[in-house]
C-alpha cells in the first residue's frame, strides 16, 4: 500500500479511472438486462460484470493489488472455504434438485 504522499497523489488518478469504469459497468449491467437474454446467459454476463467490478474495488480501493503476504494468505484461505460453502451444499441436492424441494412445498409459500 502507498505510504508516501507523492505516491498517494498519483493513485488518486487511478481511483477516478476506476470510479468511471464502475459507473459504466453498472449502466452496462442494467442495459444488458433490458435485452432479455436467456437466463443462463443473463446470469453468466451479470456475474462476470459483477466480478470485474468487485475486482476493481478490491484491487484499487482496498489496495489489494499491492498488499502484504499475510493478507493474501488469509484471503486465500477465505476463498477456499467460500468455494466449499457455495458448492458443497449444492452437491448434496444435485440428484434431487427441483424434485425433493418441490415435494415439500418449495417456491411460493402455500396459502399466501
Amino acid at each position, binding site marked *: 500500500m*502507498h*505510504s508516501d*504522499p507523492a505516491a*498517494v*497523489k498519483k*493513485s*488518486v488518478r487511478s*481511483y*477516478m479511472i476506476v*470510479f468511471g469504469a*464502475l*459507473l459504466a459497468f*453498472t449502466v452496462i*449491467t*442494467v442495459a444488458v*438486462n433490458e435485452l432479455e437474454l436467456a*437466463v443462463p446467459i*443473463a*446470469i453468466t454476463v*451479470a*456475474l462476470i*460484470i*459483477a466480478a470485474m*467490478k*468487485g475486482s476493481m*474495488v*478490491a484491487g484499487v*480501493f*482496498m489496495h489489494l493489488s499491492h498488499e*502484504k*503476504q*499475510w*493478507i493474501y494468505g*488469509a*484471503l486465500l*484461505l*477465505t476463498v477456499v*472455504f*467460500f468455494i466449499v*460453502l*457455495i458448492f458443497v*451444499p*449444492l452437491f448434496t*441436492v444435485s440428484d434431487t*434438485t*427441483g424434485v*425433493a*424441494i*418441490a415435494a415439500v412445498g*418449495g*417456491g*411460493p*409459500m402455500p396459502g*399466501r
Partner: protein
Amino acid sequence: MNIPYTVEERPDTGLANGKLGIWLFLASEVMLFGALFSSYILLRVGAPEWPHRQLNIPLGTVNTLILITSSVTMVMAWASLKMGNWGRHRLFLTLTFVLAGIFLVNKYFEYAEHFGKGEGPWHSTFFAIYFTLTGLHALHIVAGMIVMAYFLGPGAGLWKRNPDQFTNRIEYTGLYWHFVDLVWIFLFPVLYLL
C-alpha cells in the same frame, strides 16, 4: 500503557495489528454473506419457479451508483489525510456519511412499497431471502455510519495527538466500507436483475 503496533509494522507480519485485524474480520464477513448466498442458490435451483423483476430496478440502480460514489469519497477521505489535507478529509468523510444516509432512505422507500403491497418476508421464498440479504446489508451500512460519525465527532481529536494512527483508523474504516460496497455489487444483479 501504549498499545503496540498501531502505527508501526510488526516485524513478523509486516503489518500494523489493526490492518491484519480488519482483514480477518472481513474474511469472517465473506463467510457470513457467503452462507447466505449459498442459501439463495440452493433455494433458487430447488424452486420450480423463481419470480422475476419483482423489485424496483431504477431505485436499485440509483442505490448502486450511490454506494460506488461513496466508496470513492471514502478512499479520497483517506488519501486526503495521507496528503495532509484535513479540510478535504472532513469534506469527503461527510460526503460518504451523507451518501450512506441517502442509500438507507431509498431502501426505506423500497421496503415501504413492498410492505404496502403485502410483500413482506412471509410472502414468498424470494422475498424472505431478499429481506434477509438486503436487511443484513443495511445493518452493515448503519454500522459503517456509526463509525464514520465517531470519526467526524469525538474520534477526530486523535488527528492532533497521533495523525498516523488516525490515518490508519480511517484506512480500516475504508476497507470495511469498500467491502459493504462490494457485497452490494453482487446483491444488485442477483436480486434485482436475474
